């Protein structure tokens, strides 16, 4: 049985003003409450697709529907986590995490209370008064994640969130992300170029072809994650099969 779609991408195409065609006729349904990765070679338009879903970029063809309504721009039911963190360098961790609520006009006390909760959840308690430049890359991205969680959006869009952090931090962060998202029922759309990351994290992998990007394949790695360590998951047969299957497809695109 297919779960209900939180986001429907229908025939989306994007041609930039420069004439470069980034996406062509992308149609895919992203199930509610699941983590879906958009995976593909560099320049396949996966970030563009994510930004179209986020309402930051307008498609030149087709439409994206969220909760049955066509996306015209950003909306409160969608929150973004950026590749370059996009933290306000002049604001403390607390204010950065509360920023989405600040924009919505939530009173200071209320939004800071929520922000403190999220900061603790992502493991940054004690850093509320720090500034972004005082934090490591991994910690900065935790701030970015806390900011996205603070606005209570149903859908979280993550654009290569771990690509600028080192490998150990990245693995720790991936595990923490799964714990944070478990039981929250969030729909997560996650862009990555790492096959392992995609398979490790996601219920569903949407594989995009090179430019102009379109859906090459949708995979459902059936990996049992309950009560299993990260290492056990990484040795799981289904995990390894999925990684290999994706590699076989992607291999044709590389070079």
């Amino acid at each position, binding site marked *: 049985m297919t779960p209900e779609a939180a986001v429907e991408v229908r025939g989306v195409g994007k041609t930039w003003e420069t004439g470069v065609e980034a996406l062509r006729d992308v149609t895919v349904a992203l199930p509610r409450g699941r983590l879906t990765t958009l995976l593909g070679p560099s320049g396949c338009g996966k970030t563009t697709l994510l930004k179209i879903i986020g309402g*930051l970029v307008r498609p030149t063809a087709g439409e994206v529907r969220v909760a049955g309504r066509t996306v015209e721009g*950003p*909306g409160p039911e969608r929150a*973004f986590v950026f590749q370059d963190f996009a933290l306000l360098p002049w604001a403390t961790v607390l204010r950065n995490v509360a920023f989405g609520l600040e924009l919505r006009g939530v009173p200071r006390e209320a939004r800071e209370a929520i922000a403190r909760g999220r900061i603790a959840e992502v493991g940054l308690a004690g850093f509320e008064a720090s500034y972004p430049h005082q934090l490591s890359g991994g910690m900065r991205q935790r701030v970015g994640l806390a900011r996205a969680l603070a606005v209570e959006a149903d859908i979280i869009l993550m654009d290569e969130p771990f690509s600028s952090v080192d490998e150990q931090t990245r693995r720790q962060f991936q595990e923490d992300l799964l714990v944070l998202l478990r039981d929250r029922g969030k729909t997560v759309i996650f862009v990555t170029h790492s096959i392992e990351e995609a398979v490790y994290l996601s219920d569903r992998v949407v594989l995009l072809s090179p430019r102009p990007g379109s859906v090459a394949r949708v995979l459902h790695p059936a990996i049992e994650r309950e009560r299993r360590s990260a290492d056990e998951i990484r040795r799981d047969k289904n995990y390894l099969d999925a990684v290999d299957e994706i590699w076989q497809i992607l291999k044709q695109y590389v070079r």
Partner: protein
Amino acid sequence: MRLPAAGSLAVWCVAWELIGRAGLSTIVPPFSRVVTSGLAALATEKFAGAVLVSLRAFALGMALALLAGIPAGVLMARVRGAGRVLGVWVNVFVSAPVSALVPILMAVIGIGEPTVVVTVVLFAVFVIALDTEVGVRQADRSLVEMARAFGARPHQVYTKVLVWSALPEILAGVRLGAIRGVKGVVIGQLLVAIIGVGELFELYSKHFLMEEFWALVIVVFLFAFAVSEAIAALERRVEYYARAR
């Protein structure tokens, strides 16, 4: 040999004193006499009145320059047409010898404080606008995108992101503008010649009161330096994120 700044100043003061005492030129009285007659002049009502008039013209002119310059800079950076239309003029005026316009201002606005205020504005506003434009242009685009993603309305993008992001450049512009503004006050008042510090300069040089004259020069220099340092101190407070951007 490296002397600390204070030491270097002391050496200059001593040199000045010696040249003054040698009586080489009537234009250069000994430094000690400049200080004593300067202090005596500072205490007079005329001096206090002149300083007050000049400070008021400076403050008013700077306030207007900020109110016009910062929005103009933002506009030039964000609106393509405004950038083209205003950009040319701002770039011409920022390097033009604006003092040449003061006589015309006197003819149009009259001989009085408004002319001095307008002179201050003309001296300060263009560099403020130009630096603001640079700051806003350099503002991190991903921060703007982030703000939009979290539902920022257009005015919030300006008030919550762009202006803050451009603050280091804006402050640099304000500092340069303030330094030029001091020049504007002095030049404006010198040309108008009947008010404020300009009147004093005129008075002292006409009557050959060199000790008072030099005392006034030192006061004006110190004021310009103090304003510049105060804004530089503000700049250092935002430096941490200017580098981190």
